């Protein structure tokens, strides 16, 4: 059957290949972008429409054990937002943590075709892979939580860095992960082992912490650099959410030196002010640093008003937030590796801190000099649902709209920021960068985020509308690997041949002899049952190669 497609007359945005709103044909064959197709190709006339690569979400929480706990927690939220069955798609539940089928369909409905699960503990990574198999359409991968791994920390503490690197590579292979995730490194042990304490500084070296977070961060940055992973360590910095935390963030970025580091949802770590007092904005200090250091990439973690759900391996932070409003709360410790906190939340525009967080995120976007390295996320669902992305886009593209929005929120917060002075309006090209081309480059995905020859044929076609929220909310056509999934806004087929993106760096098998005794002593599963078999990829695994780089600009 002929799978050739030619998209004609569309206004194409492909920043990776320097196409900025030009009308060019896009040709697709065998699931890839090609230079030409035959006359028998199906033709899609995209006149008056915008053609972009499929969206790439670099940081969200959509599959895995903590996500499922959060799903189970919120039946009332699901009931308000049912996801109806159609002739081509399965039913599900929506709300702030949609069920897996609904997640895949809803991302596709926004024109997204790749989404990376941001935090999974190794012990339960099978669960994340199983959920990915039940998440239709979108390609996935995940970041494996290693920052509080007790065995790895002990290697760092003893200065055994060569073995540390091999062990990190072993863990990446054993879990089928995409890169290393660090969340509040050093913060697990005070929480679980010392009656609910937390670490307060990256140089804290108390009895409770066992090892200073800085040492952990440096060790991972070096090891991942040596391994040449396509995406560097992805870090949720210490002191997230606390007033005055911006200096922790800058110190954390400094530990990277000139090595690559990705700072997750950087907005939550961009606060000035004093600990224990209301925060102020430090967006300028943070964006100045990121702008000036090409080795650093980040996603913003924009807060949006309305429902959210804290779902994070930063368990002590979640417990602290629970103290403000005694909502139902979940904590889940994972032996030897990690923790997790879950708390339903509501961001309200009239509350000073929430309005400030919203403003800080927008400031970061607007002060950014490099949309390739400061990309869009809401840390779904921590800052709000991914369903908000079209609204974020409108806020960035439309200064007048932004002004109106600012007038309806807490004014004390607005007056303490410079948001009102920032008149910049993002162009469609820049939006394309922060939602597709940039995240793909940050992730090292050469076949994503662009429409050049050889790219995966993940294509989204939007009607060109004045109202950008409406435009990005409902693409007219969405294609995944050249297969049309949405046509005229409706699903025309389901799609399960998605990919699970992972890395498989080489490692010295001798390291297993070093790792196994720790398992025998301290884990509750047998070592031989820990590493995940290839079966869990269901033939969908795709290994992305390794190569040492110091920035996203190196090829």
């Amino acid at each position, binding site marked *: 059957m002929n799978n050739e497609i030619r998209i004609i007359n569309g206004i194409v945005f492909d920043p990776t290949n320097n196409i900025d709103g030009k009308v060019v044909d896009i040709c697709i064959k065998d699931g890839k972008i090609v230079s030409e197709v035959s006359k028998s190709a199906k033709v899609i006339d995209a006149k008056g429409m915008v053609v972009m690569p499929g969206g790439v979400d670099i940081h969200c929480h959509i*599959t895995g*054990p903590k*996500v*499922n706990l959060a*799903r*189970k*927690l*919120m*039946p009332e939220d*699901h*009931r308000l*937002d*049912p*996801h*109806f*069955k159609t*002739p081509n798609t*399965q*039913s*599900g*539940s*929506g*709300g702030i*943590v949609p*069920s*897996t089928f609904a997640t895949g369909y*809803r991302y596709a*409905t*926004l024109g997204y075709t790749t989404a990376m699960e941001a935090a999974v503990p190794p*012990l*339960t990574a*099978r*669960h994340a892979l*199983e959920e990915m198999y*039940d998440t239709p359409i979108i390609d996935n991968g995940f970041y494996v939580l290693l920052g509080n791994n*007790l065995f790895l920390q002990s290697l760092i503490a003893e200065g055994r860095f060569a073995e540390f690197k091999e062990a990190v590579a072993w863990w990446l292979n054993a879990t089928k992960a995409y890169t290393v995730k660090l969340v509040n490194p050093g913060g697990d042990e005070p*929480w*679980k*082992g010392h*009656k*609910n304490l937390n670490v307060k500084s990256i140089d804290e070296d108390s009895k409770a912490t066992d090892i200073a977070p800085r040492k952990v961060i440096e060790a991972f940055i070096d090891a991942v650099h040596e391994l040449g992973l396509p995406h560097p360590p992805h870090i949720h910095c210490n002191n997230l959410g606390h007033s005055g935390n911006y200096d922790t963030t800058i110190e954390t970025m400094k530990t990277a030196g000139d090595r690559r580091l990705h700072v997750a949802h950087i907005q939550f770590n961009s606060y000035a002010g004093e600990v224990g007092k209301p925060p102020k904005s430090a967006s300028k200090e943070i964006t100045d640093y990121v702008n000036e250091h090409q080795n650093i990439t980040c996603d913003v973690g924009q807060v949006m008003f309305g429902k959210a759900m804290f779902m994070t391996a930063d368990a002590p932070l979640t417990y602290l937030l629970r103290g403000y409003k005694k909502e*139902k*709360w*979940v*904590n*889940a*410790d*994972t*032996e*030897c590796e990690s923790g997790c906190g*879950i708390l339903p939340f509501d961001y309200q525009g009239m509350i000073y801190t929430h309005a400030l967080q919203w403003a800080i995120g927008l400031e970061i976007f607007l002060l950014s000099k490099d949309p390739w390295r400061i990309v869009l996320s809401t840390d779904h669902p921590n800052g709000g649902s991914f*369903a908000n992305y079209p609204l974020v886009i409108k806020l960035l593209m439309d200064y007048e709209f932004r002004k109106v929005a600012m007038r309806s929120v807490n004014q004390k917060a607005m007056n303490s920021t410079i948001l009102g002075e920032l008149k910049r309006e993002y162009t469609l090209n820049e939006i394309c960068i922060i939602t597709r081309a940039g995240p793909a480059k940050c992730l090292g995905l050469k076949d994503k985020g662009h429409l050049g020859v050889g790219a995966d044929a993940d294509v989204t076609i939007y009607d060109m509308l004045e109202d950008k929220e409406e435009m990005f*909310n*409902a693409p007219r056509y969405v294609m995944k690997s050249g297969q049309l999934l949405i046509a005229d806004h409706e699903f025309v087929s389901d799609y399960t041949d998605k990919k699970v993106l992972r890395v498989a760096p080489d490692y010295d098998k001798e390291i297993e002899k070093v790792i196994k005794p720790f398992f025998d002593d*301290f884990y*509750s*599963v*047998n070592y*031989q*049952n820990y590493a995940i078999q290839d079966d869990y990829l269901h033939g969908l695994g795709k290994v992305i190669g390794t190569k040492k780089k110091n920035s996203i600009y190196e090829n």
Partner: protein
Amino acid sequence: MSAASKDIKVVNEKIVENATCTFCGCCCDDITLTVDMDKKVITKAKDACVLGKSWFLNHVIEDKPIARIAGKEVPLDDAINEAAKILMDAKFPILYGMSDTVCEAQRHCAPIMDDCGGTIDTTTSVCHGPSGMAFQGVGEPTMTLGEVKNRADFVMYWGGNPAEAHPRHFARYAVTPEGMYTPNGKDDRTVVIVDIRHTKTAGVSDIFLQLKPGKDFELLWMLRAACKGVDIPDDCKDICGVEKEVVEDLFQRMKNCNYGVIFFGMGLTMSRGRHFNSGALMALATDLNEFTHFVAKPARGHGNVTGADNVVSWQTGYPFGVNFSRGHPRFNPGEFTTVDTLSRKEADAALIIASDPVANFPKPAIDHITSDKCKLISIDTKNTPTSEAAHVSIQTSTYGINTGGTVYRMDDVPISLRPAFDSPFPSDLEVLTKLRKKVNELSKKANRPYATKKYM
């Protein structure tokens, strides 16, 4: 007799190391199986407990038909087609069970019910379903079992009898293991049992509280109040059967431990109060985090009921008792749970997978499911009262013995199975994959109206 003349018996023997036992929620994955490959039986199950040994050693390949309709042997595909037709023709089809099979098979169940507009429920609804409901109300601080092994210096079992229901729980996870911060094993821990009767478990505890039956909620609430600074009442013993001084001492121990855990069982979920009891316990564990690190965990029973919970939750958003009649999942315990849909005679077709309601359910439910008002389909690995009563009966191979796949331990840790020997019976996965395909075909032909609401 010389050594040379001794007969040497050759047995075609296979050793399977690191096998997982799926009989209870402990899912011990350190079992070594010795398999006689000629006779297709497991002859040894090293390190398995008494339940695990009986699980492994009693498994034999029976000489029985794979599929039957109305008691008569038929080809498997015929049985599947008949089952699909029954489900599609029914006005209120239900699917129940799912616990004694792997997640790979379980994940076909909700889509089957989605296609026929039916109702899906798992054995959770008659086990820790109330704890799941309580979870939706209050949340839960919890952990994986290795945290207990490494850290817990206060271990409590409330309303459960692990010595009989989870025999290796003490030895493998919670009491005797020498962990990272509990190098002396049991000597580093205080073990407390709260139960209405003096069970075998109580016999190995440090402290046993014999509670008045039906008074779990009261004692839990007193402890919650203590967390807020309220004194234990003087008439404590009259209220719950335990002396005031004992409860005060208990509270101090809970408050002052380094890492406390409460495992809880059917004593809470199956008695008066149900989810209120579970909720009180989970809320107490939350309250205790004001003082120390405290967690709780329901002691799940059958091998993969936790898997069923997880699969149905990720596919529908709800853990059990889910209905698809309106074209989307709706959750309502009491309305869509199986004891209810059967006792009220609502279900007119029932697909029972890997469970035995005809043996275990209340009489009104059994009466209906075995009547001609409800067409019964059974997919199971052995003869049970349910499979014997079924109109369509399909025998499948056994997970963890004949087939591999994933199960979830009681603490949500996914573990892969290592099968011992194969079986002439099809796997649940094979049968459910075919059934799903057939139901999907029929549902497309049925031309049911779909809602056209745009949801974004």
